[in-house]
């Protein structure tokens, strides 16, 4: 099996035409919808009771709330809490689809750069829009560092602007690249077992224990990466939002 076959988009059924293109409901869309349904059930179920002594589901929901709220307060301050729903959605969505991707025969939504770049662009335009709305043209001072001699200022401003505009790229490539590389590595090691067994017979299958042990170790690492990358994506969102909220701090 080819290592990148797992990233194949499969069309399930057509949703109609839009601008001359046929829009399909794909395996990617199915997993995104599944993630949203699961999160809705989890959060609605977790908050429906509202008991003083929480049930297991309620304490899990409270734990995720506390975790994201602490992250936002630490990186974007108390005012950052107005973006709590936004950051919470992004974090929970990325986390859930990352973990769905670990299920064998499943599909990793975040291993497609189009998904992560749309998420990163939403963050980017939120930062830009809110910064301009909140601070007006004062927000543009973000690109003009103080204490720079005027003869090199135009160049510094150009570099700062380019640095700002390159944020969505590194923001999206990081999540996409980590998920893609991890899943390819898993598939390559799985391929080694088949190659050994197919080529050398019984000795090969015994030798296949080595790559199999690698897969177990890599899978544990990938589980960690799935959670960490969701967290990194959320924390970077907070750091970028912090620029829009407190450019003068």
């Amino acid at each position, binding site marked *: 099996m080819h290592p990148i076959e797992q990233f194949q988009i499969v069309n399930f059924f057509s949703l109609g035409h839009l601008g001359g293109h046929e829009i399909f409901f794909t395996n990617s869309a199915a997993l995104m919808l599944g993630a949203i349904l699961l999160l809705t059930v989890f959060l609605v179920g977790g908050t429906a009771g509202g008991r003083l002594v929480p049930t297991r589901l309620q304490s899990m929901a409270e734990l995720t709330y506390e975790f994201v709220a602490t992250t936002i307060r630490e990186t974007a301050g108390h005012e950052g809490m107005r973006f709590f729903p936004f950051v919470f959605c992004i974090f929970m969505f990325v986390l859930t689809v990352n973990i769905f991707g670990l299920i064998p025969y499943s599909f990793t939504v975040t291993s497609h750069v189009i998904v992560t770049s749309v998420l990163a662009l939403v963050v980017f335009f939120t930062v830009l829009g809110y910064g301009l709305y909140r601070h007006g043209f004062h927000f543009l001072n973000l690109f003009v560092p103080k204490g720079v001699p005027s003869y090199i200022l135009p160049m510094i401003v150009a570099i700062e602007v380019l640095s700002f505009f390159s944020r969505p790229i*590194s923001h999206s490539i990081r999540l996409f690249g980590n998920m893609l590389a991890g899943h390819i590595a898993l598939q390559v090691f799985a391929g080694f077992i088949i190659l050994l067994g197919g080529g050398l017979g019984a000795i090969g299958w015994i030798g296949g224990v080595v790559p199999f042990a690698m897969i177990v170790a890599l899978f544990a690492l990938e589980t960690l990466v799935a959670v960490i990358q969701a967290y990194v994506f959320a924390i970077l969102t907070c750091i970028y939002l912090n620029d829009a909220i407190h450019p003068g701090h």
Partner: protein
Amino acid sequence: MSGFARGFQLSSELVGGVVVGAGIGWGLDHWLGTSPWGLIVFVLLGFAAGVLNLMRAAGVVRQRNLND
């Protein structure tokens, strides 16, 4: 964080800057017909922005803020 993730993070910062610079330069050349000067200038600026991003992400220089 694993070494791979760290490496990927830092390299994406650098590549991001260069890609944005090249994109803007190519776009300007395309619209204004200044080829190849837009591309040359903006790739160089983009490279500088990438290095700046890289150093900020690595914590070598301070994060940008307005009171600097």
